[in-house]
């Protein structure tokens, strides 16, 4: 069927007549450029002129124009004059539009492959830039905290209250459920081991200490990194896309004071409180396992827990969670402010905020555990 889409006839006056036949649409099969070229070049002498006949042309769309655009370039390179008059008016109009504006020189991009050294250098410089960005951000944030305590930082308390609510009360259910389950799982794991020695009652110590010193703070921080840290990154990233942050800057309002400060302060206030809530629910989870599976009396379990946990254990968890709050909120805000100006960049900022926060949480947790251990706290 391919040969049906056009016919080439050679006329005596050294010109060629191309008859377009049938359908020329994107969904139909037409003659390929290669086979057209082969047919066209069968003629020993290149013609001086090309004419068109389109009386038998039926449906056509961009497919025909693709062919004509190619033919135009081909004819120009061979100095063949093309007379477009035989084409449908619409096709002539489109062809004129397509060839009217010449390609702007230098617009097209060349992809260059770079040497290994070049790429290594770029990578290293990127790393330095990243660290500089981080240090600058931290410094600016500390200055902003300073301004806050001297009463010179301006942000809207309405915003701050909203952040408090979403990072605090709004997170209670999810933190509660997860802590309860983690406490119960700890209880189960301990129960199986301790039952072998008949020392079931020490499940209370295990769960109590585990939750209060480690799991409470860490679980809360990881949940808040996913829930709130990434939300901060997405909010600030979207504001970056919409030029909202530029708008603040041009009005002389510091994005650090106005956007970052209320968010970080809200999380720093709320995360330790959530950590306490998580501690309580974790202990409750262990308690449920203890009294239902191990047949420990309620009061006995509570008494054991009370004796196992000292105030300094709780303080250890709270100090950790305070640091986690700084890490999570700063990672979210930093990545959000660094976001590029398109939708994919906002996605990257959010992911990166999560990854940075969780990585730092785990590293910091390991470090403090070792430090506290050495100090005997």
């Amino acid at each position, binding site marked *: 069927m391919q040969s049906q889409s056009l016919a080439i006839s050679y006329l005596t006056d050294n010109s060629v007549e191309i008859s377009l036949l049938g359908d020329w649409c994107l969904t139909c099969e037409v003659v390929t450029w290669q086979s057209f070229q082969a047919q066209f070049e069968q003629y020993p002498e290149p013609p001086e002129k090309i004419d068109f006949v389109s009386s038998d042309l039926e449906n056509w769309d*961009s497919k025909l124009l*693709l062919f004509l*655009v190619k033919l135009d370039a081909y004819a120009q390179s061979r100095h063949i004059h093309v007379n477009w008059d035989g084409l449908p008016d619409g096709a002539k*109009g*489109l062809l004129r539009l397509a060839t009217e504006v010449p390609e702007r020189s230098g*617009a097209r991009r060349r992809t260059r492959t770079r040497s290994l050294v070049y790429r290594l250098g770029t990578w290293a410089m990127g790393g330095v830039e990243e660290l500089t960005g981080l240090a600058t951000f931290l410094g600016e944030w500390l200055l902003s905290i300073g301004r806050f305590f001297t009463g010179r930082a301006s942000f809207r308390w309405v915003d701050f209250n909203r952040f408090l609510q979403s990072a605090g009360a709004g997170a209670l259910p999810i933190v509660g459920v997860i802590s309860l389950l983690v406490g119960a799982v700890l209880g189960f794991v301990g129960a199986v081991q301790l039952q072998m020695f008949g020392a079931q009652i020490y499940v209370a110590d295990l769960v109590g200490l585990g939750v209060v010193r480690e799991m409470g703070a860490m679980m809360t921080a990881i949940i808040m990194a996913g829930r709130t840290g990434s939300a901060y990154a997405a909010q600030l990233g979207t504001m970056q896309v919409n030029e909202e942050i530029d708008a603040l800057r041009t009005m002389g309002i510091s994005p650090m004071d106005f956007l970052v400060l209320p968010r970080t302060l809200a999380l720093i206030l709320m995360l330790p409180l959530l950590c306490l809530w998580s501690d309580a629910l974790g202990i409750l989870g262990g308690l449920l396992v203890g009294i239902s599976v191990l047949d420990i009396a309620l009061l006995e379990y509570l008494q054991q827990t009370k004796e196992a946990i000292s105030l300094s254990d709780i303080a250890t968890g709270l100090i950790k969670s305070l640091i986690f709050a700084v890490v999570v909120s700063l990672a979210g805000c930093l990545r959000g402010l660094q976001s590029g*100006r*398109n939708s994919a960049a906002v996605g990257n900022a959010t992911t990166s905020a999560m990854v940075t926060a969780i990585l730092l949480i785990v590293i910091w947790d390991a470090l403090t555990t070792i430090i506290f251990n050495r100090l005997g706290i």
Partner: protein
Amino acid sequence: MANAAQVEIGNRSGLAHIEVRGMTMAYGDFLIQKDLNFTINQGDIFIIMGGSGCGKSTLLRHLVGLHPPAVGEVLYQGSSFWQLAPNERNALMRRMGVLYQSGALWTAMTLAENIALPLEEYTSLMPAEVNELVSYKLSLVGLKGFEDYYPSEISGGMQKRAALARAMALDPETLFFDEPSAGLDPVSAHLLDDLILELRDSLGATIVIVTHELASIFAVGNNSVFLDAASKTMIAEGDPKRLLAETDNPIVRKFLTRGEEGYP
């Protein structure tokens, strides 16, 4: 799909392409416009005009099938959009191209990828052919060579034109424009008007434009509907030039003369 009959637009114009019958638009209980009745003919450049906030863009969103009307119906070549089966509705939407007010190019993709996406989704073309088509569509809007640019790297006017190239990717029968000249300088706006006329004549497409740019309205429009924000319904329809010459309605007169004549 375009077809040979498009060459003779004159013969086909006058055929009803889109008909709006007794349509009321509302968001929940909030009434936007009521009792809309008008016909967009084949080959028309149809202007939806009216003051700010009267529901022009909402009407456009109803016409392209993003919202169902609260009351009434929209007919495309005789069949009611919301009574079609979902797959027929999709096929119909594929034959429309929309140029959104801000361009709405996908910012994470290059211009070439933006235009190639509908082609890859809805046709079985080879990658090489898709690339050729992309270059051709970009050359139609004067952006040849800008395939590998991201939307954020080109100017607002260029973004508009690239968005137009994307709207035309599937050779639509109907093109919808939401405020095409907003944010363009007068020269670019004029060029865009010329391009719209040229595309109507060449593609044989029906074009629906939401605008309040008087210069564009008189330069390209041959049919229109005027929405009034106060009475929440249409108060005039027809060729804008004829409306300017003939209408007695003070609100329409005021609009078409930039407030120099008419009410109050």
